[in-house]
């Protein structure tokens, strides 16, 4: 495969962030098309290589197709210095990484923020404030509230359970603990029905406002076998502003029905890579 890799340590407020640059083999200066670079933002507890090396392998895939990719450890994660701040505290990290990427490859035509899980949420919260960000790829974005989680659980888990032969087998064989199941269902119901705290700071609202402020193209990729993605999709209730955002012409939504949260098979990873590349090549100018 035609890619190169380079270490790319970044400086962020006096602390070193560990970064890896994956580049197409042909130097960008020789390329005839102007392409954006990609900054990958990892989610949750992952470091730059990701669960089952997904970010390393995806970056190689993108670079072999002509895109320059930077991955890094947020402060306090992996090999980076400093203290971890969570996805809502990584604005400075993203800022430094954008600097580092554009210094390493000044010929890039802006940057696409690519994020998984709360990395996608971090991308959303950052993008509108940064003119270097041309577009975003949001993969299974994290928009969890307790009520939203309970609703997604009721809607997706219990529906699947009721049609599962395994459940009915258990019931027929008398192995089904009806009392415990009912108690669990009632608990989820109560959480789902609890009114959201009346603050505008709820994560889904802040994400929606950030999405509205950002005017560029967005690729949204949602896995079918992932509660995080279900919760996000459930935000787009009929008539809601989320629905308007997801139906807007600048949004491209792709559902990968079989895939799980981290695309943990070669097939799912390749589906994800292909979906991104088809969309990314349309951004060229």
């Amino acid at each position: 495969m035609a890619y190169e890799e380079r270490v790319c340590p970044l400086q962020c407020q006096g602390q070193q962030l560990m970064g890896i640059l994956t580049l197409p083999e042909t130097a960008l200066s020789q390329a005839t098309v102007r392409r954006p670079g990609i900054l990958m933002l990892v989610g949750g507890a992952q470091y730059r290589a990701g669960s089952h090396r997904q970010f390393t392998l995806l970056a190689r895939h993108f670079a072999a197709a002509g895109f320059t990719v930077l991955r890094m450890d947020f402060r306090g994660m992996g090999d980076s210095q400093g203290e971890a701040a969570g996805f809502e505290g990584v604005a400075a990290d993203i800022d430094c990484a954008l600097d580092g990427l554009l210094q390493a490859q000044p010929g890039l035509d802006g940057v696409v923020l690519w994020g998984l899980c709360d990395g996608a949420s971090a991308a959303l919260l950052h993008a509108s404030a940064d003119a270097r960000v041309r577009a975003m790829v949001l993969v299974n974005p994290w928009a969890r509230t307790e009520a939203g989680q309970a609703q997604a659980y009721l809607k997706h888990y219990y529906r699947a359970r009721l049609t599962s032969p395994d459940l009915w087998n258990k019931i027929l064989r008398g192995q089904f603990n009806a009392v415990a199941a009912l108690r669990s269902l009632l608990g989820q119901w109560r959480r789902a029905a609890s009114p959201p705290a009346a603050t505008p700071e709820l994560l889904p609202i802040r994400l929606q406002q950030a999405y509205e402020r950002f005017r560029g193209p967005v690729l949204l990729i949602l896995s079918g076998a992932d509660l995080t993605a279900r919760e996000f999709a459930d935000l787009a209730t009929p008539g809601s502003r989320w629905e308007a955002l997801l139906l807007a012409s600048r949004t491209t939504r792709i559902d990968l029905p079989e895939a799980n949260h981290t695309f943990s098979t070669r097939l799912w990873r390749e589906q994800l890579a292909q979906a991104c590349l088809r969309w990314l090549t349309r951004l060229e100018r």
Partner: protein
Amino acid sequence: MKPLAAAPLPFYLSAAHGERLCLYHAPAAHRPCLGGLVYVAPFAEEMNRSRRMAALQAQALAQQGVGVLLIDLYGCGDSAGELAEASWAVWRDDIGLAIDWLQQRVHAPVGLWGLRLGALLALEVARLRAADLALLLLWNPLADAQAYMTQFLRLQLAAGLGSACGQPANSVAALRAQLQQGQLLEVGGYELNGALVASIDGLQATALPPPGLPLHWLELVRDAALPLAPGSARLAQAWSLTPQTVTGPAFWSTPEVTTCPALIEASCAWVRTTLEHAHGL
């Protein structure tokens, strides 16, 4: 106030079949260099989850005057290749290269520090290169690598995804048979080849007596008041060694990033004392 830690130096090391990503935590400038340690990471997701602990331990050792080299093995982390093409022999050579690099860098005694499956890889390399090494630090060495691999393969059964080609297998034995026939097996996102699994299956820590160099076995446990797990107890008997137990979370398996400062302290204390002794201090 703690002196500000110097940033580790990332670089790629040339090796067979491509480069290996390395991070070097140089010994702190204000102290004499006591020696060096090469870190040997555990397998698959355990490597990812323990990345923070490895970085923190390396940083703490560097502060004490010990240079630490972290290396991603072939097909792992940010190194070249795919896990599907990895072999135990290439991994052994990778650790050998790391030892050579570190020896040239620190000009002082060098040792190995390994976690879980990495402890067994460190042990194997130490048996082959005992004369080149000054110490061996083992964190929770796997007592039975075959049982460990069985547990890993069960992930595949739990996922019910079947093998890369062919129908879903319904037992670990069937999965091992598919591997023996030369099929790749995808487990939890990791593609495994039969030769690598066979190599790991064949590692019996009880049959690998440690070489005659200073060795320290640190065993992280949930409750130090409880007896050792049966596997560890068997290993302790086979090696005639008693591990030093430290209480803390099994950071290589927790879904969130967890760390164990007590393990870092205990490791620093032993490494420093051992290297000072090697210097006749």
